[in-house]
């Protein structure tokens, strides 16, 4: 499949409005303005576009749930807090093709009856924020944003809001809290943001890649879009391949593609002299797949069938030098650091799990620690306020399931049995 979202990202001026307009920029928005908002939602529904942030929820449905009858203003909150380890697609899109996102935001606003879209960019992406601000200014100057857009009578503002370092802000309700100037902690659901969202108003929270797909649907039709991928997995998809591969990067493909084509084809496979050990197919929060599962179709449904999740399509490739206990410790360090601390199981559980993993990796573990790890993980999973808890225990559960022997070897030998050269030479220090 020809790249659609990332077709021009290597062009020097792809981020400018002039370039964008020369390549059918804002055509989709014009088409949308000629339709009724409901027709736009119908088109997005018919396209089968599913959220690219992780959950894969149908975007058209999400928009339809927005409470139109509410007397309050409606909002689009674009989730550009890309923080899932192994994920870097939105980064590329916003930086090299910002107008596509802005156009998607404008169409989204029109569809749900909103006048304002906030793009919540993670704090570390200062350069992305600068690109977006410049692009937004261009769009205002040419009448694609502001009052009475393109003479349609529709008002639309798009603003960038910069986060400040919190993975949890990627959870949709935590993002709204953060946008409201509070700590990024999730809210109880229901009510869902579509009913009570930003400033207690109906809000659609959509990922960058999701919104960037919307102009394509309007431009080329829902049927075309749906036909790009397998059934219920329409449209182009961005895959982020990283870890132990020759050519890490963002690859755009139809979801008909297999993991093997992505890893061995696009990304060039593992490095010379190494063999594949495992693949994390959807960001650090999903279970890993084993080499014999490489022919899995890299679609939402394909990967789910194989026992994992497509998530944010952050494919982390692990070769045979990777110690899986170390991996679990590395990721639990991440989750422990990023747990917002609002609910008990996640706050206490991630810290406890990390301490145990650190002990095992440092050689001080005991066999009963393994049962303890599964038990604690079980007490966290499904008991937390948001999906973070399930995500956080996945690295523990998946490594225990497939690589229990590595844990046992650590405990038996009292040291890490697979200390790769790319790892620190120092001994594990205290938690910091």
């Amino acid at each position, binding site marked *: 499949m020809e790249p659609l979202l990332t077709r021009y990202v290597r062009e020097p001026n792809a981020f400018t409005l002039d370039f964008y307009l020369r390549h059918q920029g804002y055509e989709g928005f014009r088409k949308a303005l000629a339709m009724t908002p409901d027709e736009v939602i119908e088109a997005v529904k018919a396209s089968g576009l599913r959220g690219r942030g992780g959950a894969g929820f149908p975007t058209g449905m999400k928009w339809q749930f927005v409470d139109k009858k509410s007397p309050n203003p409606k909002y689009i909150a674009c989730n550009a807090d890309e923080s899932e380890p192994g994920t870097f697609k939105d980064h590329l899109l916003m930086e090299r093709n910002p107008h596509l996102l802005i156009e998607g935001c404008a169409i989204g606003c029109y569809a749900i009856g909103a006048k304002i879209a906030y793009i919540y960019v993670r704090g570390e992406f200062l350069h992305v924020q600068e690109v977006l601000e410049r692009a937004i200014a261009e769009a205002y100057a040419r009448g694609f944003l502001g009052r009475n857009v393109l003479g349609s009578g529709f008002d639309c503002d798009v603003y960038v809001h910069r986060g400040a370092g*919190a993975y949890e802000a990627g959870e949709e309700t935590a993002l709204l809290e953060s946008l409201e100037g509070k*700590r990024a902690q999730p809210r*109880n659901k229901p009510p869902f943001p579509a009913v009570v969202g930003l400033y207690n108003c109906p809000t659609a929270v959509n990922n960058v890649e999701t919104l960037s797909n919307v102009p394509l649907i309007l431009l080329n039709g829902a049927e075309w879009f749906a036909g790009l991928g397998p059934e219920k997995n329409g449209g182009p998809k961005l895959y982020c391949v990283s870890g132990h591969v020759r050519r890490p990067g963002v690859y755009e493909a139809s979801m008909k593609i297999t993991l093997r084509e992505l890893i061995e084809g696009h990304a060039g496979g593992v490095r010379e002299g190494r063999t594949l050990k495992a693949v994390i197919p959807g960001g650090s929060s999903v279970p890993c797949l084993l080499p014999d599962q490489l022919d899995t179709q890299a679609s939402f449904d394909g990967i789910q069938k194989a026992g994992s999740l497509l998530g944010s399509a952050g494919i982390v490739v692990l070769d045979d030098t990777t110690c899986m206990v170390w991996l679990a410790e590395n990721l639990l360090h991440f989750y*422990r*650091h*990023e*747990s*917002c*601390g*609002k*609910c*008990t*199981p996640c*706050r*206490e*559980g*991630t*810290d*406890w799990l990390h*301490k145990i993993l650190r002990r095992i990796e440092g050689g001080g573990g005991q066999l009963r620690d393994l049962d*303890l790890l599964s*038990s604690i993980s*079980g*007490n966290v999973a*499904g*008991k*937390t*306020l948001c999906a973070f808890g399930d995500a956080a225990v996945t690295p523990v559960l998946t490594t225990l399931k497939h690589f229990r022997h590595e844990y046992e070897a650590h405990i038996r030998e009292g040291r890490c049995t697979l200390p790769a050269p790319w790892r620190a030479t120092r001994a594990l220090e205290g938690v910091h």
Partner: protein
Amino acid sequence: METVTLTIDGRQVTIEKGKTVLQAAIESGISVPYYCYHPGIGIDGSCRVCIVKIEKMPKLQTSCSTVCTEGMAVSTRTPDVVEARAGVFEFLLINHPLDCPVCDKGGECPLQDFSYAFGPDLSRMDFPRRVFDGDGVRGDVDFGPTLMLNRQRCILCTRCVRFMRDVDADAQINIIDRGYGSEIATFQEEGVHSLISGNLMDVCPVGAITTRDYRFKSRPWDNPLAADTICTQCAKGCNVTAWIKAKPEWAKGSQLIRFTPRLNPDVNDYWMCDIGRFEYHWIEGERRVRKPLERQASGVQQPVSWDDVTAKLCDRLAAAGTSNPDGVRFLLSAHASHEELFLFKRLTEELVGESGPAAISVSWRYREKQQPAGTKFKVPAVDAPNVNGARMLGLVPGAPGDEVRGADVTALRQAVEAGRVTALYVFDPGPDGSLGDTTWIVEARTRGPLPLLIVQGVLLTDLARAADFVLPGASYVEKEASYTNGHGRLQGTTRAIPTPGDAMEDWQILVNLGTALGVAFDYKSAAHVRSDVTGRFSTITELQGLSTLAFNKPMEARHWLQASNPSERWKWDFMFQDLPPVKGNVDPTSLPLPPGAIPLKEV
């Protein structure tokens, strides 16, 4: 009322539409633990201990955040719920110090009680516990003028954060850091400065927030009695509980040990202010008048017997009244109850005639309190419980419900300073200062224009020290008396502790005095006085409630111990009405358990 019907553990429960599963469980006496939810603060969904199983839902749900729907089937005792809940309790306890023996909450701690009932049998945590400011009680740190904070004990339910933000409307408490390092704090450790800070101790479900006033003073099981009463320190009339600590055998008697608020949605909700909560020490303080006092020729006040004081007082009063019938004046605090105001009024009527009550002035202190503009718990500026009562009895102009400003006693003051008053009888049942400024009286008595000053009251104030006679009366926890609060609500106090020394209930003092003065008072009790009030003021409907007003008695604190934390008292007072184990005839334990349910441990 629109209702929905659901089943919880096989029991059919009908509840107001819009309420949550947790509320349904509580109201029907089904035990579901919770920490972050508080009926006065709201839902947070963060502690996760109230998880239950709801049919057709894939995951366990927090009952606090799930709204009841028709036909919903909830289980709280199936093995998956029991196991998951125990798991959450294990998490709550992995960093909670087990310093219960030295913790003020011990014995009335929801974390203890719920862990006992729902927690795991042992903890598998073998790493050192988190320590913030020091081990055990050494971790207690300054949390403002009224409170102390122990961060180790905190389970981050955020009730305190939300109380300050949503109820007091001044978000002084924050969380700092995040995740496992989260702590409760105030900006730059400034502490909580609020007129309603004491409520934070009530809402804290562990011993993290304690009051300086009560900490290390008693243990719940050393407070065998408690009396539901009202606070009379201002016009609000908060419903409170006075807790009574037993003294050791050799010391005899009992001691007032703390006040806690009692739910009354019409008056004070779940809260009370710090004035009512902490400023009670005068009741059993050193300055309390325990015997009648008479000023000797030497100028020294000497204790005398009631018989002596009554006789001498009558002589002096009669003499003053005979020489100048308009020269005898009364200054009553608006802390006087209906009974007391009525008796003063009757006394003047009997002695002087219809115009007698003109000799009575009523005073109170008026202080605007510094509070956040949006506070949901406004402390009135009128520091007296019964201005409206005085109005109904015709002693203060205005009708109940009219706005109350400062008291006006300028006419009396002018008369006193001009030497037109031959005897001033002041009634001041405390606390000190509640009459407003009284220095002019002291001045008038010492310099000469006022020849006779009588004070009936509880404290040896500067005013009482200047008096010729001091008659020891009762404070608001030592008598059954009635008051009409700022909103016109009639309420009564409870006799929680006895009057000290020879002090007497004020109605009795007045009846004795009246009798000695030749007035035919035949009241045998305060209740008797009240029925006469309703009889003589039959046109004032607000006073008719006096005949049926019920007064509480100090009770064995046993059921409060079961209810544990005083802040959880609402369950017993409000939601468990007519349900076991308080009263009623439905025993939930006698109901058949649903299939697969695990019986609970008895608390």
